[in-house]
């Protein structure tokens, strides 16, 4: 019994919190100095076999997921939970306390105090002061105590709970992280243009994960600044489920697509030596897509056309123009330069073809499902609100004790006030209040 009490006290103590936070800070440094998530041979190579072995035992290569680091985080949570259970009832009692039960002696010993007499009888004085208090923004309650009347007004009582909001927010964030870890996944996939996929590959293990629907990459493009730096990576993705297209959206870096809780982020790309050529045999015809390797002749029998890419013009990685060779059935072949990705037309014996030629890419997508992220965000919001409340708001209380004075028809008044934080600021607003309630003061 005694032991469990001591254990409870340890876990309810801020001492343990300081210890855990110090340990977390110091151990966190390790993973910023020793590169994480490399393969064993890499560590052997860099640090020698003995140290690499030692790292392995302590899970240093993946330390932020190691048993001991998670244990420390668990310790912090246990500390927070028990500390809160231990202290919350007291804080709650302070919020809900009957402030009119205060003894006159307590008022005498308050740090902010002012005594004076008011030249009117008790009942009238109570009324005057109540309305002046209301004007000053306080809402007093009152109680008769023997022949005296006690008024009380308080502000920001609930600000005493700010610290609990901060501490709870940390637990909420952890809960969100755990939820995401167990019910979500992270992965990636590379989808060549015009192709689709129903599965992606888990980060780290590369295990395939079924999406439950299909994602097609309709196109991928890179925009450049004038100086040649990449300006934007864009993919047009189409989601289809049970063979039906349900959603088409363009994504960019920082603007992902979400479907059924799974989010697709533009993360990288791969350029091919192939080209995608879209040709329609007239403005109103449905276009046909072809994957054309460089300098290889392609045939489109229905359109009675043969074609191929014979040359390109590039600046660095940026492909600007493509030279196409075309031959309609029974006609002489011809060539033309088209801009990469721009529509062009080509006429032969009275027939006009619309065509677009572009370099072929695969879009690289980061894929994540994280059902815990809303909890994490909620926790973050709670933390910021809680920090604001616990740092900048305080519980301010004022009392007025009014007693009939010895002289008839006068009332003696004691005004007292206290704040649990920012005492200097409160002292200032207290003296302003004194001026408002007692304007004839010398």
């Amino acid at each position, binding site marked *: 019994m005694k032991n469990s009490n001591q254990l409870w006290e340890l876990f309810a103590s801020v001492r343990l919190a300081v210890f855990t936070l110090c340990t977390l800070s110091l151990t966190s440094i390790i993973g910023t100095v020793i590169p994480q998530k490399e393969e064993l041979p890499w560590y052997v190579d860099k640090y020698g076999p003995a140290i690499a072995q030692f790292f392995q035992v302590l899970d240093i290569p993946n330390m932020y997921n190691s048993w001991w680091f998670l244990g420390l985080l668990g310790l912090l949570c246990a500390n927070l939970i028990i500390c809160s259970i231990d202290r919350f009832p007291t804080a709650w009692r302070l919020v809900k306390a009957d402030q009119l039960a205060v003894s006159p002696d307590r008022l005498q010993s308050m740090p902010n105090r002012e005594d004076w007499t008011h030249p009117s009888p008790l009942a009238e004085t109570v009324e005057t002061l109540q309305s002046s208090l209301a004007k000053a923004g306080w809402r007093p309650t009152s109680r008769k105590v023997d022949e005296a009347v006690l008024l009380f007004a308080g502000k920001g009582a609930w600000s005493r709970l700010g610290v609990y909001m901060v501490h709870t927010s940390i637990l909420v964030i952890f809960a969100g992280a755990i939820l995401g870890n167990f019910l979500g996944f992270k992965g990636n996939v590379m989808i060549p243009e015009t192709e689709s996929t129903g599965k992606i590959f888990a980060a780290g293990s590369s295990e395939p994960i079924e999406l439950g629907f299909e994602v097609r990459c309709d196109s991928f493009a890179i925009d450049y600044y004038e100086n040649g730096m990449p300006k934007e990576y864009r993919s047009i993705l189409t989601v289809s489920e049970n063979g039906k297209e349900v959603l088409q959206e363009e994504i960019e870096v920082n603007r992902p697509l979400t479907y059924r809780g799974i989010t697709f982020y533009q993360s990288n790309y791969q350029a091919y030596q192939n080209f995608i050529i879209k040709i329609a045999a007239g403005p109103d015809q449905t276009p046909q897509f072809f994957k054309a390797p460089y300098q290889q002749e392609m045939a489109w029998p229905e359109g009675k056309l043969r074609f191929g890419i014979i040359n390109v013009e590039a600046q660095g990685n940026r492909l600007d123009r493509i030279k196409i060779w075309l031959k309609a059935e029974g006609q002489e072949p011809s060539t033309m330069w088209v801009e990469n990705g721009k529509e062009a037309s080509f006429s032969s014996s009275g027939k006009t073809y619309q065509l677009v030629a572009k370099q072929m890419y695969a879009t690289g997508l980061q894929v994540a499902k994280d059902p815990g992220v809303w909890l*994490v965000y909620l926790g973050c919001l709670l933390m910021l609100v809680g920090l604001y409340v616990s740092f900048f708001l305080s519980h301010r209380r004022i009392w007025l004790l009014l007693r009939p004075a010895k002289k008839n028809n006068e009332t003696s008044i004691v005004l007292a006030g206290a704040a649990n934080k920012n005492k200097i600021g409160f002292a200032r607003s207290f003296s302003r209040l004194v001026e408002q309630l007692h304007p004839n003061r010398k």
Partner: protein
Amino acid sequence: MTSSQLLGITTLAYLFATLLFVFVFVFKANRLYLFAVAGTVLAFVIQTAGIGLRWTESYEMGFGHAPLTNMYESVVFFSWTITLLYLGMEWKFRTRILGLFALPFALLAMAYASFSTNISKEIAPLVPALQSNWLIAHVITCFVGYAAFAVAAGLGVMYLLKKGGGNSAREAGNSQPGNLLPAADIEDLIHKSMLFGFIWLSAGIITGAVWANSAWGTYWSWDPKETWSLITWFVYAITLHARYTRGWAGKRLAWMAILGFLAVIFTYYGVNFLLSGLHSYGSN
């Protein structure tokens, strides 16, 4: 006039104002104090104009963005926020010679930005990952926090000097601007700046996480920059709690303000140049 000329003048103006503060402090030249503060205001106005001009210049170059996106711009902004906070505190709390302890940080930041060969001053367009409003929110919140911690560290030095100086008897009751504030007032200001910085740092870490999640689908990946910002956050959380249980105040608080700021500097600067990481800042 170009923004880099204005920012160059800013560096000189900060040097001038800092020297004035030194002069006021060393020679107790109280009448010059107002000139030192006025010099700081002037430097701040020039700096604000410089930052504003750099902003418009980026639009003239055809890819406008707020000047908060590389190491150079962030150092300039850091310096600007330090001065803003210092001037705010001077105005609100009559902090007297605090300028002597806060302004050198603003000066050092500007001098580093102007003279270091490690960082590029060019106005460059943004790569796709940096095109996010969360990035702007992230940079602003982080640097307001860092600036508050810089001021706290300056106050920490001021406190230690006050306690160690042994001249407190001579200065007792003397509220000339060239004299240090009473120790209890300095301590209160250290605590206040730490609380202020802590909220902004928390917001900075959070907005960074939201940005990472919108760009890569991971709000926390333990990269060295993130980890160090968390360590910094822990250092201040430890200070708040040690103050509560152990009554850490006075000199201990002053030392924690300095230690905390060293963690800030390491997060901001050391990680880029001493550790390998993913953060794009400072790699150029």
